[in-house]
């Protein structure tokens, strides 16, 4: 599909930011200009356009590098030992190497979302035309693409406009990637700035992908009452032929659902999904059901419940085909990014492909046409299901006991397990007929099967664990509100003020994958803690599924108990990974719609606003992927702190503030230009928490912002102190850093807080109109 070039040429532009002369930008075709807001200072920002802003953040939030290994092996000069102050043959040191790896991860993540967006936009244009309008919320949404408008300075109106945005994103990722070549960037802080750039571009790519699919595929359009979908291992009627879809890119699943509908077969075949494809197919059609997050892949496949598997892209196990063959399940790969070594049957007549799959002449096929995937998948599964008879490789109890008797307690399984699960002890118990310890492991098993690979006896340990825990697994029947997409402008108008003043104590975005240290229930617990306290809880991806997987005494899930509205006490599922852009979009819209800050290509000012005023924090408790790294870095550039779970420490660097360095915590008072101490709010930009208790207390603390009114700060402090007292058993020792004047002190805690303040020699501080940008000072002194 040919694209023309965008060309934006401005001879002279007067704006609030000064005079731009001879500004010229060329990324494709000339955009039809309907947006009357004047162009801001950084349209389609280059890799270094926002470097000054990045450095402001990086001065305060310094990188703490956590090298995973001591060497670099990225070129044939190497391996180079970078231990301590050594440098590699190219002159690089350890700090730069670590930041380079972080940049590589974020480029991988950004490229993945952008390529996903590119595929979707091309596919949808082919099917629905380049002039299909973008509509993600009807009359409820004016700002249809806040991230794109902020970053690129254009207002996309049709599908074709998104092509231009993607051109920009792809170009930036290429440039960023090039700076990781040996002998390019040498400064760790510049690498970090580029990490932020990758994150920002990633956010644009995600937004493009989601607004394209919402607009054209008829997903819920910013609907707080989006329907509830069925979720859980035991949710499908597996007496029917069952298609399992895995991945993130929905067209092939849409092809399946459309074919079933067209042929009147809905209800005759089950369509179940894992990971974000499951999110998006349930946004598309209510016949689809969700099995669970990514860690549910092996347990479902090995249980033999799927009669056919369709994979698209991202986070799919590389051994899917091998595992599927073991249970005689054919596989259809449907993305060029993940061909699995299968023969390309895109142009083959469907009847032939169906026959080959049914007769097991091929283990699977590659089909790069979603309609054809639909036809082949449905016709095949109907014929394959009776032949398979739900063939499974989960062993019977007797087999497990028999194997357990042969276990040598060599510990290799445990030493391979990311969560250090006591598998040898559980095997010892199993040898005596007690399978409970194995069943308990399932609760916090991430389904990686590293234990299987490690066992010298070749025991399929993950299958043993699944069998032992199957009773609970089969009872998994939950409800999840399907992804609603964006937040409405009117919702932003309603909550903008209480959020900025601090009266809604914060927005907690619980996102990301399922690499949990102790199972997904912790995510539900964290979400409910904050929803009960009338924070706004926003969620997406696997985390949104995990938080559905707990029921209260009345049998209700969080989604049945809490509203899906973006309001205090809401639990708001925006959707799949790419829907994360709407969370950033909500923060941006608070600055634009509520505070009337200019949006167009005005990144720095909006980020400054969000950082100082919008008490939003991200939590990616089970983050594992490069995409999650990119998503986090998009939030860092907006000044929004992100907390990851303990496995997130393996992202190799944190961005940590130092509350013991008062000099780091000054802002400018935009009214006067005076430098004002505001305390460590927010204290960190990126950190890993060791336990859920730590995460909960930290999230409450990270919601504080310099702009909080006293009433708002008192509310935020109440939550922080209360949670700290409950979970840490004491008052926080840093409370004096967050109290600016007497009215900040929560009334119910006055006496004890005052006591701490006296001990610490606390002094009253003023509350400024905070900014980190000198150009935003209204009355300059001197």
């Amino acid at each position, binding site marked *: 599909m040919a694209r023309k070039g965008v060309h934006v040429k401005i001879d002279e532009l007067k704006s609030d930011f000064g005079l731009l002369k001879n500004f010229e930008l060329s990324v494709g075709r000339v955009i039809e200009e309907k947006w009357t807001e004047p162009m801001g200072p950084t349209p389609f920002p280059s890799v270094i356009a926002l470097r000054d802003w990045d450095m402001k953040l990086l001065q305060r939030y310094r990188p703490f590098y*956590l090298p995973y290994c001591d060497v670099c092996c990225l070129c044939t000069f190497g391996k180079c030992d970078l*231990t301590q102050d050594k440098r590699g043959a190219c002159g690089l040191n*350890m700090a730069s190497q670590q930041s380079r790896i972080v940049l590589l991860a974020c480029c991988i993540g950004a490229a993945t979302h952008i390529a996903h967006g590119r595929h979707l936009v091309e596919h949808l244009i082919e099917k629905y035309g380049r002039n299909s309008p973008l509509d993600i919320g009807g009359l409820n949404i004016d700002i249809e693409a806040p991230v794109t408008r902020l970053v690129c300075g254009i207002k996309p109106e049709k599908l074709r406009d998104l092509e231009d945005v993607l051109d920009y994103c792809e170009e930036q990722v290429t440039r960023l990637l090039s700076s990781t070549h040996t002998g390019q960037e040498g400064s760790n802080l510049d690498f970090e700035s580029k990490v932020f750039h990758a994150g920002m571009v990633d956010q644009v790519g995600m937004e493009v992908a989601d607004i394209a699919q919402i607009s054209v595929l008829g997903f819920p359009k910013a609907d707080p009452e989006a329907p509830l979908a069925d979720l859980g291992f035991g949710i499908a009627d597996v007496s029917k032929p069952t298609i399992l879809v895995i991945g993130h890119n929905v067209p092939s699943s849409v092809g399946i659902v459309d074919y079933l509908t067209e042929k009147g077969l809905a209800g005759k075949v089950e369509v179940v999904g894992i990971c974000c494809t499951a999110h998006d197919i349930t946004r598309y059609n209510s016949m689809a059901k969700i099995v669970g997050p990514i860690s549910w892949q092996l347990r479902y496949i090995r249980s033999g419940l799927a009669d056919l598997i369709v994979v698209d892209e991202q986070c799919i196990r590389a051994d899917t085909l091998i595992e599927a063959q073991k249970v005689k399940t054919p596989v259809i790969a449907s993305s060029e990014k993940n061909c699995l070594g299968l023969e390309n049957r895109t142009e083959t007549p469907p009847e032939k492909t169906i026959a080959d799959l049914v007769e097991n002449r091929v283990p699977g096929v590659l089909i790069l046409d979603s309609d054809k995937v639909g036809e082949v998948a449905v016709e095949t599964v109907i014929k394959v299901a009776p032949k398979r008879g739900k063939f499974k490789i989960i062993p019977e109890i007797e087999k497990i006991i028999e194997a357990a008797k042969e276990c040598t307690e060599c510990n290799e399984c445990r030493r391979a397990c990311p969560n*250090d699960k006591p598998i040898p002890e559980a095997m010892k118990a199993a040898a005596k007929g007690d399978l409970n310890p194995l069943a308990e492991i399932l609760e916090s098993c991430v389904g990686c099967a590293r234990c299987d690979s490690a066992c010298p006896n070749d025991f399929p340990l993950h299958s043993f664990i699944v069998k032992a825990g199957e009773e609970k697994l089969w009872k998994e029947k939950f409800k999840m509100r399907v992804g609603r997409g964006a937040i409405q402008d009117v919702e932003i108008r309603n909550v903008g003020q209480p959020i900025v003043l601090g009266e809604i104590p914060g927005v907690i975005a619980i996102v990301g994958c399922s690499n949990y240290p102790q199972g997904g229930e912790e995510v539900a617990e964290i979400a409910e803690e904050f929803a009960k306290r009338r924070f706004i809880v926003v969620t997406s991806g696997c985390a949104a599924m995990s938080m559905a997987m707990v029921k209260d005494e009345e049998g209700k899930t969080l989604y049945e108990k809490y509203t899906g509205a973006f309001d205090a006490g809401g639990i708001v599922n925006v959707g799949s990974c790419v829907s994360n852009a709407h969370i950033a979009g909500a923060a941006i819209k608070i600055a634009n719609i509520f505070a009337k800050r200019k949006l167009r290509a005005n990144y720095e000012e909006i980020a400054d606003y969000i950082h100082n005023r919008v008490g939003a924090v991200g939590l990616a408790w089970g983050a594992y992927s490069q995409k999650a790294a990119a998503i986090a870095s998009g939030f860092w550039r907006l000044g929004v702190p992100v907390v990851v779970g*303990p496995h997130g420490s393996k992202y190799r660097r944190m961005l*940590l503030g*130092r509350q013991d360095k008062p000099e780091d915590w000054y802002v400018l008072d935009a009214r006067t230009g005076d430098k004002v101490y505001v305390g460590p709010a927010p204290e960190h930009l990126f950190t890993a928490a060791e336990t859920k208790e*730590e995460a909960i207390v930290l999230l409450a603390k990270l919601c504080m912002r310099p702009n909080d009114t006293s009433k708002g700060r008192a509310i935020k402090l109440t939550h922080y102190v209360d949670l700290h007292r409950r*979970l840490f*058993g004491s008052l926080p020792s840093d409370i004096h850093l967050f109290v600016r004047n007497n009215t900040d002190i929560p009334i119910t805690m006055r006496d004890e807080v005052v006591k701490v303040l006296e001990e610490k020699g606390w002094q009253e501080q003023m509350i400024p109109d905070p900014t980190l940008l000198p150009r935003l000072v209204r009355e300059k002194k001197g």
Partner: protein
Amino acid sequence: MSAKEESWQRAEIAGPKKALLILKPEVVGAMVKKAKRPILVVGHLAAEEYSKSVRMIDYAVRIGKATNMPVVATAHTVNEFIKEGFPATSMSAMDIGSRLADSEWKGLDGGGSYDLALFMGLPYYMEFVILSGLKHFSTNLKTISLDRFYNPHASWSFPNLSVKDWKENLETILAKLGEDRKDVNV
């Protein structure tokens, strides 16, 4: 288990520079005594039961009492120290890690930087990367892992040990530190 420089989690490979094995635990006692400003960092696993009625935190408290060295409790572990009536400082693992990596940090009491940091009870992989951060970026700090498993980014670490051997090692260290043992119940 034989005493080898072998990471507990198999894939967590470090090197060229790897932790020296603590083969004689009394040496740890001597190192602690020799250190000018030692500090003990204790993670949340310390509060869990290692095996029947053995908790790492009991050893942490005893080490703290025997040496008067400051104890930092990470995550929510301070709660457990409060129950034990021991004054630990609460700080997250990343916060204490990054401060220890900063040669200009003057310590919890402002008295100067630490020269020896002992670690126990953090999740293995988290301790692994924090010790790595300290190996590469701290200047005058030595680190010791007192966990039951070999953690290769420390300056010194136990090999992978059985609970019994690990307990014995810690008892030996405590004896070297001159602990009065009559009230000990393990």
